[in-house]
């Protein structure tokens, strides 16, 4: 990535030897905890109550996978026309090649979609798994109550599995630390709202991957340093892309590993990603926990159910949040990224497209793809044509 102004290579933001390889960085983080004897629990998505886990001194490890390599192995058990994220995650497990899964002593699984639900049944044959029944009509009054009950059940599962305990005070402390962590993450993302952006998609993605499992106490000093570096970039006039690069907001399914082909095609076509609106990007850092309520588990349940995943119905919050992101990050176009066989994101794309074109008057493109490289030429034509239509 070159800076237009100085024409010098920009020093990577984290600059810790893991730049562009966020999975390796997180693995290194987990190894550090493993050596200290900390228990590790596998999780699957942004609804996992990370602060509860952390309040017990347990370390969460995300098991969602983004590599095409284990898909062939997965297809010996799972149907080929399934979501690549599920196939990749499961393929790593049956190949025995996932260090994150190997390190996890138990699994917390959230019922976000049918494919994952049925995969969890297969995983539970291999490792102790607790399936959290995620309410999917979040506006109903019972939804938060039920999610709170489910978090209490996970607490019991973790206490029994790991012989650890927690308290309201410890959870409250974890929530406050997460609020600080998430506020700093939002601040870091904001550097992409500057025209032209002073942070790249790769850097946002690198930071987000590490920040998600980290406790507030661990990551806050790191984030504060990054903000200082970003302020220096602003001062030095360093930025990414060109001043007239097409600003792209990418919404939809999580993007990582082989799926980042979409980000790369956007760049090759003269665009710059200014807002990665997904669970591997900004989504899990949005919002905040109510503090000092006297019932931190309820506060946690309330905040988690506000994550606007397409598994929720109606998912009006996704459109509301998207409007806020559009106002802030000022994209020229919006791309909706849908993974093959992710029916909820795929169907919801129609509403997202109408919202973007009618209410924000921005060009919109839905991309449906998997982890393979076979459609890169077609993606390029679509994305270039989208940019031409501005």
């Amino acid at each position, binding site marked *: 990535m070159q800076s237009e102004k100085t024409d010098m290579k920009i020093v990577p933001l984290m600059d810790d030897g893991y730049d562009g390889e966020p999975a390796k960085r997180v693995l290194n983080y987990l190894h550090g905890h493993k050596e200290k004897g900390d228990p590790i629990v596998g999780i699957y998505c942004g609804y996992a109550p990370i602060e509860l886990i952390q309040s017990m001194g347990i370390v969460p490890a995300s098991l969602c996978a983004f590599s095409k390599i284990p898909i062939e192995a997965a297809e010996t058990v799972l149907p080929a026309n399934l979501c690549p994220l599920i196939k990749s995650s499961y393929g790593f497990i049956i190949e025995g090649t996932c260090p994150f899964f190997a390190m996890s002593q138990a699994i917390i699984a959230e019922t976000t979609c049918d494919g994952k639900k049925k995969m969890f049944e297969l995983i539970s044959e291999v490792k102790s798994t607790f399936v959290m029944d995620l309410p999917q009509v979040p506006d109903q009054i019972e939804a938060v109550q039920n999610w709170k009950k489910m978090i209490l059940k996970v607490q019991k599962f973790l206490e029994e599995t790991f012989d650890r305990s927690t308290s309201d005070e410890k959870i409250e402390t974890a929530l406050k630390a997460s609020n600080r962590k998430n506020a700093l993450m939002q601040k870091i993302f904001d550097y992409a709202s500057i025209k032209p952006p002073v942070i790249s998609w790769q850097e946002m993605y690198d930071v987000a991957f590490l920040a998600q499992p980290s406790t507030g106490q661990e990551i806050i000093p790191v984030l504060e340093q990054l903000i200082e570096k970003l302020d220096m970039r602003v001062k030095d006039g360093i930025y990414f892309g060109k001043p007239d690069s097409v600003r792209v907001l990418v919404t939809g399914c999580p993007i990582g590993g082989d799926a980042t082909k979409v980000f790369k095609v956007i760049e090759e076509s003269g665009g710059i990603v200014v807002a990665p609106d997904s669970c591997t990007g900004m989504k899990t850092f949005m919002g905040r926990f109510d503090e000092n309520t006297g019932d931190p588990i309820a506060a946690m349940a309330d905040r988690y159910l506000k994550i606007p995943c397409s598994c929720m119905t109606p998912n009006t919050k996704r459109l509301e949040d998207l409007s806020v992101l559009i106002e802030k990050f000022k994209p020229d176009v919006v791309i909706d990224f849908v993974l093959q066989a992710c029916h909820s994101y795929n169907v919801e794309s129609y509403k997202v497209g109408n919202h973007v074109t009618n209410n924000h008057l921005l060009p919109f493109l839905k991309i*449906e793809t998997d982890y393979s490289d076979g*459609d890169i*030429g*077609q993606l390029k*034509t679509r994305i*270039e*044509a989208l940019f*031409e*239509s501005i």
Partner: protein
Amino acid sequence: MKCAGIDIGSRTIELVVIEADKITYSLKTDTSYDPVSQARGLLKTISYDRILATGYGRALIGSCFDMPTITEIKAHARGAIAVFPDARTVLDIGGQDSKAISLHDTGKVKKFEMNDKCAAGTGKFLEIMAKTLGFDIDDFGKEALLAKNDVNISSMCTVFAESEVVSLIAKGCNRCEIAKGLHNSVIRRATGMINRVSSAGEIVFTGGVAKNSCMCNMLADKLGRRILVPDDPEMVGAFGAALLAGE
């Protein structure tokens, strides 16, 4: 000023030269396994002041011959509106891509739909099916129009459709009727794409498949909309690129 457009498609390469927005020269050749040499051969025959490359192979040719590029979506839209200024919808079915495009009154692309990475419903599909049935691709549409009854082909995938065709032949079905059924399956896919981008008005049909009379008739019947086919539908992309080169 002489402006040129070169459209490097998956099956053929077209070259168009225009002066004062009128085509003065056009040439076509197979893309083959070596599109760079093929393009070089075409380019040798002309002189021009400005040029734009478009189509599937635009990046390769653009970098080899140092030419700016645009997508075939923009090129077909520009070419189509130049031939039929009142049209606001374009359907392009080429060798391995099919796309439906709707246009703003200014001629700018409003919305587009493209087939996914599979070649179902494209020229390649029709070509393989014609071969399976022993028809020349140029007569495939005419022969399909001779069918008296409808045969339904449910497979969209080229490989599956070929097995379906083989089993219909084994059942003793008339090959013109099978041909019509195959055309119908391409039409179903194309109309789906068109309806997602526009709901009314004339449609300009471009790309090699627009030369197929059965496709044009069936499209018009199914959509109840007028289908306009330029004289040389395969040249529309290169013509659009030449016009854009001059703008």
